[in-house]
């Protein structure tokens, strides 16, 4: 009886939030791949095999093999961990830097606000891929540089968000009350402002994660991200592009993986956003 109740509740929830549900279902396999690649992969993702170069998809190799005889399916499975972890790192760093600077700017205003917001405006004045490309090129190629470059162009989004929230909350009565009771600035920030900003930050993160996967894949596709044997999706598509018109499977499957993850996370983020503002 209890189980039925849970199932009924879940069905109702899913029917009410179709975007959230579809997004969740799309992203679920990739989260599992990222957590337990050893279980889902059928082969070693970096093991080459001269006898099986360019094999088309088959029962043995679900997604075929690449130009070095590596199993494309297993590489896509292992790639999930790289993409999801790297995207989380990008957003994590960007969020941390942005939250600190945005709160400082919004809370103390004055010159710190002016300096920080000028920097924010300047960074946002670039198309993000272009600035990330320049930073990542200057740092030298590699996954680490790509992650740093992506975070470097992303933090202003969070700084702007937090500044707005902080200014808005600082004018609220409960903050004035806390001030009147003699609460210190850090106490107000940590007890009253940040806890009230958490939901907005989470929604923003859920919307941005998909875009971070995309930015990272784009940088790798250009040749700035992960290098040779690493099974990173963008880099796999970049290599697969050379053979795309004949051995399409080498690039097509990682390309589809990128698309599904980005669509899935975007739907999930949109769903969360809608769940917060049912009036939208």
């Amino acid at each position, binding site marked *: 009886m209890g189980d039925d109740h849970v199932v009924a509740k879940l069905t109702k929830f899913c029917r009410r939030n179709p975007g959230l549900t579809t997004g969740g279902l799309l992203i679920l396999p990739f989260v599992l791949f990222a957590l337990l690649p050893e279980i889902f992969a059928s082969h070693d993702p970096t093991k080459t095999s001269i006898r099986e170069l360019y094999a088309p998809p088959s029962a043995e190799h679900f997604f075929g093999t690449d130009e070095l005889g590596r199993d494309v399916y297993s590489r896509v499975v292992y790639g999930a961990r790289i993409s999801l972890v790297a995207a989380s790192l990008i957003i994590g760093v960007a969020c941390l830097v942005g939250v600190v600077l945005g709160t400082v700017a919004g809370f103390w205003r004055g010159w710190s606000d002016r300096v920080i917001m*000028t920097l924010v*405006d*300047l*960074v946002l*004045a*670039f*198309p*993000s*891929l*272009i*600035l990330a*490309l*320049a*930073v990542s*090129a*200057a*740092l*030298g190629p590699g996954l680490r540089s790509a992650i740093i470059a992506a975070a470097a162009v992303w933090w202003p989004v969070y700084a702007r968000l937090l500044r707005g929230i902080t200014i808005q909350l600082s004018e609220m009565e409960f903050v004035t009350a806390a001030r009147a009771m003699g609460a210190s600035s850090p106490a107000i920030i940590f007890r009253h402002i940040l806890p009230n900003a958490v939901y907005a930050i989470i929604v923003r993160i859920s919307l941005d994660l*998909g875009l971070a996967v*995309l930015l990272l*894949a*784009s940088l790798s*596709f*250009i*040749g*700035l991200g992960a290098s040779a044997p690493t099974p990173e999706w963008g880099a796999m*598509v970049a290599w697969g*592009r050379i053979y*795309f*018109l004949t051995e*399409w499977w080498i*690039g*097509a499957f990682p*390309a*589809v993986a*990128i*698309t*599904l993850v*980005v*669509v899935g996370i*975007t*739907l999930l983020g949109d769903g969360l956003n809608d769940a917060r503002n049912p009036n939208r």
Partner: protein
Amino acid sequence: MGRLILERLLTLILKLFGMAVILFVVTQVLPADPAAVAAGTNARPEQIEKLRVELGLDRPFHEQFITYISGLARGDLGKSLLTRRAVSDDLRLRFPATAELAIFSGVVIVILGISMGILAAVNAGRTPDILIRMLVVVGMGIPPFVLALFLQLIFAKSLDWFPLEGRLPTLIAPPPHVTGLYTIDSLLAGQWDVFWSSVQHLVLPVAALSLGRLAVGARFTRSGMLETLSQPYVRTARAKGLSEKRVILRHAFRNALIPVVTMLGIQIGFLLSGAVLVEVVFTWPGLGRYAVESVVSFDFYAVIGAALVIAVIFVVSNTIVDLLYVQLDPRIQHQ
């Protein structure tokens, strides 16, 4: 309006200066060594040092900065480390290709995006609306380079409807240079076959670049239209007995355009970023591909130059969009 334009222009100049500073800092502070790149992989340390002096990289930070900025003011973006050609000359050659791609994509996004948005709003909740909303989700999720690859595979390789890559076949000479846009130049020269061929070459890259953005455009137009259609003055117009077509096109449309213009401003950035990747797939000889080629060979000044030019296009077009916005909605000016 005149005062406003002046104000925006001043902000624009300050912003461009700031952006140049950021790019300069990026090149100076980060670890890559331009002199080592210029000297090549087999260079001896003393060769690298010699080049460092030659390129002025041994001078103090502020001196380099002044040289760089005064160079920028004259339109000098430095020399390519590999070819030793002026980066600005290279970029001038590449610019029209990107411009042609972006202009055609922009036109497609505006025309198709707005009409799809109106279609969706007028049919809110019915099949066309649902189809367009699905397209939005897919369009936003597919990376432009993935879409470009699949378009190539399906429409160039399998169906052979459109050429695979480039701006023109190798056997056809480009039309005489006037604007650098092959479609316009070939028309001016009366070369119909060249015109037709360049249009065919544009179809797939433009499709790859605009599909996702088009969907976003449709979404913005839809919500803008729905909001204006529920306004009292629209009801009044209907009550006066005006035809539905007139109500929508004359009364609702202009106000619905306001969010669409905002959308356009955001789109330009995506369009330029996307163009970089699409140009790579279609070996389109534009700014983006130049930037990527320079990145791969660590040709540093070329990367910075290309990034700066793309950023300038972005900021300038955003300023224009901003002014357009004020033109459309006079209320904004008085705030």
